[in-house]
Structures are given as C-alpha cells and as structure tokens.
C-alpha cells in the first residue's frame, strides 16, 4: 500500500509543476481525490484490511493525504495568483500624472468673504442679504443721506430708468431704482423686518459709477455689519473690530479709529490697521473699513426708538481685505478671470 500511496504522491508532485489553469488543477484533483481518484481507490481498499492492519494503514493514508493537500494548496494559490494577474493587467506607473481635470478653485474674494463671515459668526453675527437693484429710499433716504447730499450725485451712482420695476425692491413712492452703492441698505431691510436685539453681517456686491483703474472697479464687494441692542457702545465697536482685525491679519496687527464722516453713523470712524506681516505695506497705517454708532435718524427711519435702542455698524471692502491679505496690487485682477491668477488661491 505504501508504494501505491507513494506513486499517487509522485503523480501529484510531477503534475503540479505543469498546472497553469484552474481546469488543470480540477482535473488533477479528480485523478487523485475524485470519485475514481487513485487516493480514493486506495482508501476504499482499506475496507479489505483486517482490524489490526487498519490503524497503521490509516496513519499512512492520512500522512499522504496531508502531503497531497499541501501540494494542491500550493498549486491553487499559484493558479489564483495567475488568474488575478490576468484580471488586473499590467502594473501601473504611479508617477504618471492624473489624466482627470485639474483641481478646481474658489475665487479669492469667495475665500476672503467666507473667512470674514466665519469670524463674525464666532461673535454671534448671522448673515443677512438684500437685492443689488435697490430703491433710493433704502440706499440713501433711510440712511440719513438726503436728496441734495453729494453721495446721491448721478455722477457716482448707476440709476435704472423710471420704467424699471423690480420684484425684489419695491418702491415706497416714486423714487428711482439704482444699483446699490453700499451694502448698508441691508441694515435698513434688516431693521425693518426683524426686532432687535440683532447682529447681522451682510456680504454683497455694490456698484459705483467710477472709471476702472488699479483701485476702482465698476462693481465691488462689501461686508456690512450691524449690531442693534440696548446700550451698544463705542467700546463694543472696538471690541468687535479689533477681534476681526486680529483674526484676519494676525495678533500682531494694531488698530486705530480715525474720526471720519458717514451720513448713517455718528460718531463715524475709519479703522486703520498696522501690521508687520503685510509685505511692502508692513508697518504703516492702512485704512481697512468705515464704522461708527448707528445715527439715531437711521434707527428712527427704520421705526426704532432711538432712546431705547442703539447700534453699531461697519462696512468693509472685500477687495481691499483680499488685496492686503494676499499682496494683490491691482483690483482688476479680481474680474479678469485669468486662471493663472485664480489658481494661486485654490
């Protein structure tokens, strides 16, 4: 019997090296351990042995079977490897560049806007919005800018014809519609639609009838801020704006409030910053935003009692902030849509 087992084992070992496919493997298995396989026949033959002979024969058979299994397992692993290799095809060169489209990018003004909004959200400001086509009343009258004020000069503002009717900016009377010159109009819309206390920031596009040059653009973007509550003070104004400046320009940035004039705030200030990290604009005072306490006339225009409520407001130019943060020297880059510019801020 041992010789029979040895020959079965030898047959398996000889065949194993030749086997390339799963079918050949299955055929070998059938020859050895199939219903008529040589090992199967040997095992059947054990039934003819005496009781005394069986344990030794069983041991021999098991040992052989174990060896056979090992051979078959090795072959099976090799066949499986070959099958997978055929499935996978040639190996890849990971140093090749991806053929897919290049990564996209957010516009630097979008990034700047979101960064600024995130800063004010931390301080409990929520985002509000208003239309770009606005009524004269919301843009000027309600903001204490009467009809003969220089800011309402036709020279500086784009107006729409009398025939223009906007579903988003309904006239109060027969006033003109215009392209808003600042996002301060959203202050008015917010105070008219919500009850104080309120804290909002309003990002948006604004328009001025300016010739385009390195610092002027036919449209530009502002973020307006408004906080109306009981007892809002100049100290609160500094608190909010110092926080904004330090979040945007780093903790080394210093601020100062420089007295100025806006019809809708009293007192009014420009906030200047000075920072060591602004390239060639480092270490000098730079104007970054206008701010002040909301003029009582604005509160009254919006139906709020100015003896009960007080507020602070500020407006900053997105382009201005983005230019300072990124060292951009010409506002026209923002609207030129040259990908060599846009991809720098991806």
């Amino acid at each position, binding site marked *: 019997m041992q010789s029979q087992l040895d020959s079965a084992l030898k047959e398996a070992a000889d065949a194993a090296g030749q086997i390339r496919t799963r079918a050949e493997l299955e055929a070998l298995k059938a020859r050895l351990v199939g219903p008529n396989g040589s090992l199967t026949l040997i095992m059947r033959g054990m039934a003819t042995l005496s009781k005394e002979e069986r344990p030794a024969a069983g041991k021999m058979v098991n040992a052989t079977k174990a060896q056979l299994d090992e051979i078959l397992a090795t072959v099976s692993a090799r066949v499986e490897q070959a099958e997978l290799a055929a499935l996978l095809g040639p190996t890849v060169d990971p140093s*090749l560049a991806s*053929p897919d*489209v*290049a*990564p*996209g*990018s*957010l*516009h630097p*003004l*979008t990034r700047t806007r979101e960064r600024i909004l995130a800063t004010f959200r931390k301080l*409990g400001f*929520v*985002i509000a*919005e208003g239309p*770009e*086509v606005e009524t004269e009343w919301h843009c000027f009258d309600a903001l204490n800018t009467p*009809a*003969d004020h220089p800011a309402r000069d036709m*020279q500086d503002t*784009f*107006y*729409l*014809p009398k*025939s223009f*009717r*906007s*579903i*988003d*900016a309904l006239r109060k009377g027969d006033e*003109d519609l215009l*392209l808003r010159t600042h996002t301060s109009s959203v202050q008015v819309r917010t105070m008219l639609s919500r009850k104080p206390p*309120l*804290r909002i920031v309003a990002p948006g*596009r604004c328009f001025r009838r300016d*010739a385009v040059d390195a610092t002027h653009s036919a*449209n530009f973007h502002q973020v307006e801020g408004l906080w109306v509550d009981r007892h809002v*003070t*100049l*100290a*609160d*104004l*500094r*608190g*909010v704006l110092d926080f904004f400046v330090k979040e945007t320009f780093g903790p080394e940035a210093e601020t100062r*409030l*420089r*007295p100025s*004039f806006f019809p809708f705030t*009293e*007192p*009014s200030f420009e906030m200047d910053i000075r920072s060591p990290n602004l390239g060639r604009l480092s270490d000098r005072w730079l104007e970054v935003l206008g701010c002040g306490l909301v003029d*009582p006339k604005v509160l009254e225009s919006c139906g709020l009692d100015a003896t009960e409520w*007080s507020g602070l407001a500020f407006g900053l130019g997105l382009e201005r902030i983005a230019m300072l943060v990124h060292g951009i020297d010409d506002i026209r880059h923002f*609207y*030129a*849509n*040259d990908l060599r510019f*846009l991809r720098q801020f*991806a």
Partner: protein
Amino acid sequence: MRVSFQSLERHVDLSGVTPTQVSELLPMLGLEVDSVTTFGLQPIEHLVVGEIRSFEKHPKADRLSVCQVDTGDGVLRQIVCGAKNFKANDRVPVALPGAILPGNFEIKSSKLRDVDSHGMLCSAAELGLPAGEDGLLILTARAPALGTPLHKLFPSPDVVLEVAVTANRGDCLGLRGVAREIAASLGRPLKPLEARAPSGTTDKPSSKDAFGFVKSTSKTCPYYTLRTLRDVKVGPSPDWMRRDLEAAGLRAVNNVVDITNWVMLQTGQPLHAFDAAKVKGGIEVRSARAGETLTLLDGRVLTLDANTCVIADEARPLVLAGVMGGVESGVATTTTDVILESAWFIPGEVRRIARQYTLATDSSQRFARDVDPAGVDLAARLAADLLIEHAGARVVGPAVVVGKAPRSDRTIKLPNGFVAAKLGTPAPEEHVSAVLRRIGFTVHATNTGLEVTVPSFRSDVDRPIDLVEEYIRIHGTAQVPVGRPLAPLPGEEESPAASFVHEVALRLAGAGFSECYHYSLCDAAEVTRVLDEKSSAQLALQNPLTADQTHLRASLIPGLARALQLNLSLHAEPRQLFEVGAVFRPMADGQVRECLSIGFVVLTEAPRRSWKTREPFDLFSAKRLLTGIATAAGIANTRLTWSDVPGGLWQEGHAATLADRGRAAEGACGLLDLRWTRTLDIRGSVIAGEILLPRATFTSARKSARFEAFSSFPPVTRDIALVVPTSTGAGDVAERLRQAAAKAVGKDIAVEAVTCFDVFSGEGLAPNTRSLAFEITLRHSTRTLTDTEVTAALEQVAAAAAKAGWTVRR
C-alpha cells in the same frame, strides 16, 4: 484743501511743532492728509543768478545751444542748454558744478556731444518750484544781481498739506477752521482775528453807495450784503499775500481780487468784488430768465435756465451765484470803485448749479459745504480793512444787508452720563466741558447735564450724539476701550441663500471647476444673446458710464464663455469654470426679477494632450450637476421638468431647459451654440449649465429631513421594452410606466424605480420610432413579493403602455 504750515501760523502758535507732527495729528482729528509737499525754494549751494551773454547753436545737435554765462565772478562759463525760451542777456538760474538739485541730482562739469558744459541752466520744475512756461525760469523781469543765491529770490520754504475735508466739515475749508482743530488738539489758543471796518446795519443803500438798490428775490440766497469802497488803486498785492495765495495753489491777480481770495482762504467765506462802474442801477439776486447768457471769468459762455440763481444788475446777469463771476463786471486795472459782496447761499442749491454747469470752483466748493453765516459779515470787514490798507480804498457808509443769517449759535442739552453711555467708559462731565470748550463751544453745567452752545460755524453739530463725536475726536479715539464681545444670540436665523452659495461653490470647486467673477454689467449684444430684443431693452441702465457696460446681465454663461476664450488665448489651459452671482430676468408682467444664478462651462476637449483619454463631459454630466445644485437649494428632483431648448445660447437638439414652476426656478444645460462659440475662437464644443433661483427660493429656512421607515424584504425587478415615437421623451415614458405600476400594485408595494437601460433605433424598427427598455423595481413593505402578483402588475403596466399607443416588445 492746500494748507500751508506758514499760513496756519497766522492763526495758531506752532512753535515747537513740526509739519510732520501736524500731518500726523490732522488725520486723528478727522482731517485726512492726502499728500505733503514743499513750497518755496530750499537754499541750494552753488545755485545762483546768471546772465546768458551770448549763445550759438550746438555744432552737433540741432536742439541744443552753447551759452556763455556770467554769474558775476568775472569769468564767462560755457554751459550747454536744451531750452528755447531765452534770448541774449536773459537772467536765469544757474546750477554750478557742485550744486545738488531736488531729487539728489548733482551737477558736474561734463561734455555734451563733445562740447564742454560747466553747469546747468534750470527750469522751475527742475528746482521743485511750481512749473510755469516750458523752458528756463526767466528772471530778467525781476532784475536780480548776478551771483545772488537763488533762494533769496523766493519765499522761504514752506510745507503744504493737501487736506481732504469730509462733507460735514465746511468750516475746515478755511485755514482758521483747520487751525482751530490743531489748537484744540494741542491745547493752545487761537490767535485773535478782528476786523476794524463796521458791520452792516441798513437794508437800503445811501446816496454815497455805488449801487441804487439791493434785493434778493431768490430762495437760494437768504442773506446778502454789499459794501461800497471808493478810490481803489488796483495794483499788485503785497508779497506775503501773493506767497500765501501761491502756497494755497491760487494765482495772484491784483490786490482787490487777491484780497478777496486771501480772506476766503482764511475764513472759508467766498467774496466777490464788482467794478462799480460796470454795475447798472443796482444789484438783484434772482432766478435767471430762460435763455439769458452770461460770460464767465474763464471765458465760458453759459446759457442759463430758470432754475439758476444769478446776481444781476438792472440789465443783465453779472455772476453765477456762489459759483463764478462774469467777465463784464469784474475788477480791472481801470477800476476805481468796488462793490464788495459777501453772502450765504443754500448749500444744496450751489452744489446743484455748479453740477448743472459742470463748474467746480473754490467758491462753489465752500458754499456747497455750508459756510459760517456769522463769517459773512466778518470776512467782508476783514477784506475792507485790507483794501483800505493795501489798495488805498475809502469805505463809504455802512454795509447794506438783505435778509438775515440762516443760522446762529444754538444750545444743545447734553444729559449727564450720555457721553459715558455711548463710549462704554466713564467720561466725567467736567472733562467733557473742558474738551468741548477747546473747540470753541460754550458750556454751562446744570444739575441734569451740560448746556452746550455750538457756534454757527459748526453746521454739523445739532444733537447730543454729535457732541459725543466732538468729545472723542478731541480727547482721542485711543481712549475708547476695547469691549468684550457678547455671547451669540440664540435662535437667530441666517440667510439660507448665504450658506447655499458657499456649499455650491465648494461642490463645484471640488468637482474641478475654477470660480470666476465677472462684472454684473455688460453690453446690449451680450443680453440679446440671452433674451429677445424687448426683454433686453428692459435691462438697460439710465446712465451707463461706458459703452461696454450698459445693461444688467441676464446670464452668467456669456461671461464664462469669454473667460474660456481669454484663457485659451493665454494658454492657461481652461477646462471647467463656474460662477455664482445675481442675474436679472424680465418677467411676463414687465417686472424684473433678481435671481441667484449658478453657471458653469466645460470645454469638452482638453487643451493639452494626455497619456489617457477620459469620457468627455456631456449634457448628462451637466444635468447631474444641475440636479445636485437644485437639491442643495431645496428643490427636489421630482419637481424639475426637462424639455427642449428654443435656441439662444444653446445648440438646438443638444441642450435642455429645466423648470420648477412652483418656485419659478429655471435653467438650462447642454451644448452651447456652436456658431457662437466658434466666433469666440473656441474650436471644440462647450457644454454648459445654469440654474436661476429667485429670491423666493430662499425665503424660508430649510426644513430638517424626516426619517421614513423602509422595508426589510427584497425587491423584485422586471424589464419591459417598448417601441415609441422618437418625439416622445424617455422621461415621460418612464413617468407613465411608474404611474401605471403604482396604480397596479396598490399602496403596500412601492415602485422604487423605473430605469431606462437601453435606447435603440434603426434596423427592424419603423421610421421615427425607437425602442426603450426599462427596468421596474418593486418592493413590498411587509413581505416578500410573489411571482404571480409581480407578473400580474407588469401585465397592467404593459396594458397601460399599449393604451398610450406604444408597442410592447415581447
């Protein structure tokens, strides 16, 4: 306004204070300093007066002259010069070798085209003086001695600050106003400013006056005064006055005109001097009669209308009120008697008139900012004093006054604690009083607060809050403490559009799109590419500035297509671009809607070859992006209807429109019109997409999604193939099958999907038909479906299809 340091010193003692300190001080008081320049001539060594004894053309250069110059030291120097404006024996500035001119430019002996040159003859600009005529600064008329150091011929050097005065501070358009601010900040007194000539007292001219009547019939002028000055000798004004005028950027004319200008510079009150001999009858301030003409001092001839206020005599208009005098009645060398006008005009009216005739003058600029009514009288008296002193004039009788000052000093009650409450830090009343007194306010303390009297020169201070500004301006904004921001207010709702805009931008950037920002204004041609002529006209501006920005944009796609064109030409390899922004669409009823638009464009062929080609982006890629964006905006896919495009921006038959009628959202996607994109030099095809979301889409905050339980039993799928007319949309067929299936199976069985998996036309099918194959997925909520019930349901679906006229393929 140009503020000279030396002129300021006429009003406040600036000893120990440098011009630099003043230029740093003013901005913190609210007066921005735009520039700091020098005026006059700094002493420069080796820069002297010389005389050109003779000159001849340079042998090798047509434009150069070789001059022999005498600087008084006994030798003739040869100097080559490029100017043309001199003649022999002219005296000119000579920079000798060793002189260092402004800009650190050192003069050396040299050769110019082989000819020796030992110095330089100078122009005004080369010396840092206001540039006059082209060429050398000719000094002949002044007859200076040869060799005189040049700076001795010019005023001592001064520093001039260009100060930007905000709209509310008309008082600072006079040097005294600026000086008052500096004095207050430094804690120094203003020097006194007093006039000797008498104030006006009567409203009728006497027989001695040079005018027979004065009246104002115009609302533009509530306060008007005139004085007669006789025996005036017109001539040059004194050097100090000429210096002050030139430092302020004005030209000296004659003593009478210079005096009115000089007083204006000090006080901010514009004055006007008439030649009495040219005034017929008397003076009336009135509205112009339509069609009247007036020739101004600058030679312009205006045709006036009835909304214009003029100063006229009985025959004709003499002066455009508050703006500019006329040439006929002005002071000339022959003038002997002068009528001096000082008045107050309504600021807004002067601004309007100046704008109407596009004239911005020193006078209109000041009247438009509201001059001090109390200064009307003072300025005229100061001018009279100077005319007596420097023009030998004789005052006859008192001034004649019509109307009265529209504003005088006023008192504001400032409650105790008000300033502190606005500052957020203590502000003791005594301190507030002290600070306000420094800017010329009178303060009286009472038990309940301060009574603050504001002088008439401050038109902008009316209310307690205005006094807070004055206090902190003078006390210093550095004294405002940095407050601690409060905690957020709970429950405040944020604009859903804002977070949507950011989410969409991130989504598209993540999908390989680069964000663009285009101007909101475009030309008519660009709008008509999107809308019909009539709708396009509705988006026109009333007052465009440039021909390429006349309309509101109606779509983001034209801008994005141009960005592809631009970046292709730049070889910047554009592929996928997007933009988010407002666009404007006229509606059927004529109103215009402002929509938030999200648009994108994709160049289907990569500008650069690659080692591996990807499936190109197509209409259905665009459709998937748009439906994703719509979902993010809260518009479910099931609400969107898709149909063919009528053309316009899009290539017919290769693009689709979408609409959500309920929310009035609309959009389109697919291939851009090939003829158009070819005109943009884009060779391949462009797939684009745009969705327009009206403001109403975002009026309410989005609801949180509600969980719905789902079945734990397996689904069953069955296929059905139909032959349908080519004109019938696969989407419509699928919807019909879904409805039929839902009706067939009842409410316990969900029709989970009806998916088209094969589209075929051609061989074996009738013309204008195609075969569509669908997989229908059904699932029971509480048990496994049986084959019988599914088969029965599919029979009903097939019957419904047949009823619709479609052939079911078995």
